């Protein structure tokens, strides 16, 4: 790994040790708090793709390394960082970008526009200089700025005049708002006329960062299982001595290491969309599998939040639903693999 990225990795590790590890349950389930968010921003984590002054510019590699390492301890913190960065790729307004970059304001993108069928996540109408209506399934609905699609197809940046509506169930990332937003505003800008296309590009750009979070979760949860299996005993043996547990976990760790190698390879090249999607697809599946096995190794303790395992079980599934669609992503991937439209019947 290049030196600057190694330094970055160490920075995140230190940050985790100081501010995250002892606090991860609260950061996951409760609230991150303004001070913590400012601290994250203070590390430059929110502006890694930002074109704002002081922002690092589009650096998916650095962002991915940060996300991977944050997710090892607190996946919700990684997702919060992802949201800020996905927001800043599409925005040019310096005051908005600056506020998100320094953590005084927050931003999000309504990717549910792409993940569910048209109209299934509510309607926003742009008419006579106003945007109004209700949009469902907004991750980060407690944000100050929201990028969203309106029914007529434009991608707009909402700056005020909206509030959170119906709260949704939160399987994962419970400290991040997840609800509908009720909008009635003139305070917005149009970012793109062909909004869906622009949002699709933004979504595609997330493939490697989302994979990074998945891999970070896999590393975090499997480390806990490895540690536990070395100290817990049953029937006079350490759990690690039992073949079913040792073989299952080792096999998943092997998969994880192979994916990590592929991840690093992609980061040091210019990955194609197909390669990025391969990584995302496999990393999301791995995070779910390895979380299940790691929870199982912990027996009853795995089922309690105190052991910090069950959150990975929830978060790995939440991530694979909120930033991925089995149906749509697989159709796209099949098209890339077959080099023509495929997998649509």
């Amino acid at each position, binding site marked *: 790994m290049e030196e600057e990225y190694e330094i970055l990795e160490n920075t995140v590790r230190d940050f985790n040790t100081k501010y995250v590890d002892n606090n991860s349950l609260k950061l996951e389930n409760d609230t991150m708090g303004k001070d913590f968010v400012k601290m994250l921003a203070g590390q430059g984590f929110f502006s890694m793709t930002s074109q704002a002054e002081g922002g690092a510019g589009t650096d998916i590699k650095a962002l991915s390394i940060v996300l991977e390492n944050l997710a090892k301890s607190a996946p919700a913190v990684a997702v919060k960082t992802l949201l800020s960065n996905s927001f800043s790729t599409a925005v040019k307004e310096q005051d908005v970008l600056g506020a998100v970059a320094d953590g005084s304001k927050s931003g999000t993108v309504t990717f*549910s526009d792409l*993940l*569910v*069928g048209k109209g*299934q*996540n509510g309607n926003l109408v742009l008419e006579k200089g106003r945007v109004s209506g209700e949009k*469902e*399934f907004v991750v980060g609905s407690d944000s100050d700025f929201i990028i969203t699609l309106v029914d007529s197809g434009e991608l707009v940046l909402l700056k005020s005049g909206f509030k959170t509506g119906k709260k*949704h*169930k939160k*399987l994962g990332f419970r400290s991040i708002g997840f609800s509908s937003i009720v909008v009635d505003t003139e305070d917005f800008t149009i970012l793109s006329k062909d909004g869906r296309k622009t949002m699709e590009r933004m979504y595609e750009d997330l493939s490697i960062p989302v994979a990074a979070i998945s891999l970070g979760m896999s590393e975090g949860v499997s480390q806990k299982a490895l540690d536990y299996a070395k100290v817990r*005993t*049953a*029937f*006079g043996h350490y759990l690690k001595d*039992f073949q*079913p*547990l040792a073989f299952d976990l080792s096999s998943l760790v092997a998969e994880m290491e192979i994916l990590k190698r592929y991840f690093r390879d992609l980061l040091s090249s210019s990955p194609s969309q197909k390669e990025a999607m391969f990584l995302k697809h496999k990393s999301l599946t791995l995070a*779910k599998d390895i979380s*299940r096995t790691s*929870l*199982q190794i912990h*027996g*009853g303790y*795995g*089922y*309690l*939040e*105190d052991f910090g395992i*069950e959150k990975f*079980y*929830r978060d790995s*599934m*939440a991530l*694979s*639903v*909120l930033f991925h*669609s*089995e*149906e749509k992503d*697989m159709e796209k991937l099949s098209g890339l693999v077959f080099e023509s439209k495929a*997998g*649509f*019947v």
Partner: protein
Amino acid sequence: MDFELNDEAKEAVVKAREFANKYFTEEVAERSDREEQFPTDIVAISKREKILDFSNPWKVLVTIEELVRKDPGLGISVTISAFGAEIFMFFGNDAQKEKYMNPVFAGQKTLGLGVTEAGGGSDVANIKTEAKLDGDSYLLNGGKMFISNGQIADYFLVLARTTQPPSPEKKHRGLSVFIVDSKTPGFSVNKLHGKLGVRATNTAELIFNNVRVPKENMIGEEGKGFYYIMTFFNISRIYVAAQGLGIAHGALDRLVDYSKKYGEVSETGELKESLQLAIAEIATRVEAARNLTYKAASYLFKFTPNPVVTSMSKYYAADTAVFSTRRAMELMSIHGLTTDLERFFRDAKILDIWEGTTEVEKLIITRMMLKEEGA
């Protein structure tokens, strides 16, 4: 061979469905889950309406399945009040049955079973709680972990060591089962918070600090406790399998509803095939798990239990529940995440753990098979 339920069992299914539709509202289910609150009111109504008819085990089985299909947390809470009662039935004396078992079956009292300890649940014989004879009673010291109904039960059946084993390999000897009244001095509980799922159920740690238990509260013979508990698990695992069927079937219901409402169709007008195949796979697994469970139940209810088939049914139904909730969630996407399937997904995972982990069930299957074959 008859694969049909009899009329009584069919009626029980209808009764359970009506009860669940009436009382397991999303509001109550969501609140009990969020607040980790045992649904005392609904449990009381279920007892009044005799939702569980203990005189007919088939009715109990299908009732569990049907209630859990509507909501696992509430369904299990309603059907777990008599957890452990079969130990009285098979090994208790008449006075114990009269005093403790009958009020539990009549819905007047709640029972809990304390086997697992902080140091281990799979390795039952390795428990550390001790019961020492002191005059006409035993003094219990130690603790139990993850005990369902821990805070609400009136009595517990508790496994404790009464004599040291003859050798480390024979640890399962010298264990006995006691009835402990929750009001006995020296007995205390700590509620466990922050479970992944089944959050409506009540789970606690039990602490015994010189808890005095009268001699007559010992179940059966001294030293036979391990055998009693294992016999009980061979019964209760069938009911856990029924929980698995309920969860898996519940996930299937939701996926089918989703596919009708939102499922994408291809040019032919049919649902896209990936969704069709997923539905078929879950439905097939549910059916296979049900056949295994009903087979295990029919052996047991004829008093010829088959531990191999019982463990197969528990392992397979649990796995099916976890598999089905995961697949349904992946396919329903945000429509799954934002509906009660989210709870089903969290609830399902407990089935891999309680009353014998999946690994332990698989070990039992092979060991019993080999034993039967005289290997």
